[in-house]
């Protein structure tokens, strides 16, 4: 009993630490779900055309995504959220999506994937390549023949093989990737995916519902019909 009494302050302290910790984590979770738009304004995005665009020029909302093909967060977003974004926000003319290449330092296979996507873009096959790279991320990142694995995906994406091979060997599309990377560096991107809705940074990786709520708050569905 004496030992039990002497332990009481310790258990009480442990309980306090647990309660405070759980409360702080709970607050962080609630903060994310109750904050559809972060008002951290990032201004210098309009430094010339960058990235690869999908959607209508007249869309009132532009979502800019800095993304890395080797990043697992980006793959999860591309595979789980992007199909809904594409069919319900982009194809309906409400959103214009701008993908900006941002290969992260340390991701040694990412530059090859970005170059391949940029090469596919020269043949109008960027988005097909984008989808395949993310859907098969776990495979090409582990493949010893990286270029072979990525070329195989490019063929699936529908590129002309000879032109694609030439682009890859001459690295003729690499400048586009570098320009995008430079844009990201200039505004202090430090993780991927990082997204901006009409120039305002979104906290974390949003779900489709969160993105739709942001789009609704900027351009309600009824008013976009005239565009």
């Amino acid at each position, binding site marked *: 009993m004496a030992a039990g009494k002497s332990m009481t302050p310790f258990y009480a302290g442990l309980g306090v630490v647990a309660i405070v910790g759980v409360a702080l984590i709970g607050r962080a979770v609630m903060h994310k779900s109750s904050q559809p738009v972060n008002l951290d304004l990032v201004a210098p995005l309009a430094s010339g055309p960058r990235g690869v665009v999908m959607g209508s020029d007249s869309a009132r909302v532009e979502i800019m995504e800095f993304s890395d093909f*080797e990043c*697992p*967060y*980006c793959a999860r977003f591309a595979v789980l959220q992007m199909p809904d974004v594409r069919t319900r926000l982009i194809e309906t003319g409400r959103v214009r999506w701008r993908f900006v290449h941002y290969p992260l330092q340390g991701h040694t296979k990412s530059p090859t994937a970005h170059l391949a996507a940029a090469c596919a873009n020269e043949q109008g096959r960027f988005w097909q390549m984008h989808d395949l790279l993310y859907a098969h991320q776990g495979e090409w990142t582990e493949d010893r023949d990286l270029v072979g694995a990525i070329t195989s995906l490019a063929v699936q994406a529908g590129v002309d093989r000879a032109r694609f091979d030439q682009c890859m060997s001459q690295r003729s599309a690499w400048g586009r990737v570098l320009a995008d990377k430079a844009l990201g560096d200039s505004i*202090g991107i430090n993780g991927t995916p990082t997204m901006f809705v009409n120039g305002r940074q979104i906290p974390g990786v949003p779900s489709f519902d969160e993105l739709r709520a942001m789009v609704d708050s900027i351009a309600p569905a009824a008013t976009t019909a005239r565009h």
Partner: protein
Amino acid sequence: MPRRQAVALLALIGLLVSVYLTLHQLGMIGPLACGTGGCERVQASRWAYIAGVPVAAAGVAGYLAILVVAMWGLQQPGDGRPARWLVLLGAGGVLFTLYLTYLEAFVIHAWCRWCLGSATIIVLILVASLFDLRASRA
């Protein structure tokens, strides 16, 4: 006893940090509270997952195991077995942390403060466990 209390307290703090990072990796928490921004870069890297499982989840499992063993040890003050288990778990945690810290320093080239905090905690746990083991053999 104070050493096992310290291990239990440190394990609880480590557990909370790991839960925080795991929830972030699962997309349930927005940007990490991290002054340098290096946390996002580390957490977005491919090394933040092992076979599709967030690395932080391994921290949750490890710290939970240490917490359970420490609590067991507190109920059995004269028993040397918890001390040995704590040293084993602590050493495993330190080795894993060394690997992760190497990745931060030489591969990702970014530092995650939460990860460094966790590294400090696991080292302290190992040190306290070694003292506990020595005391249990005395």
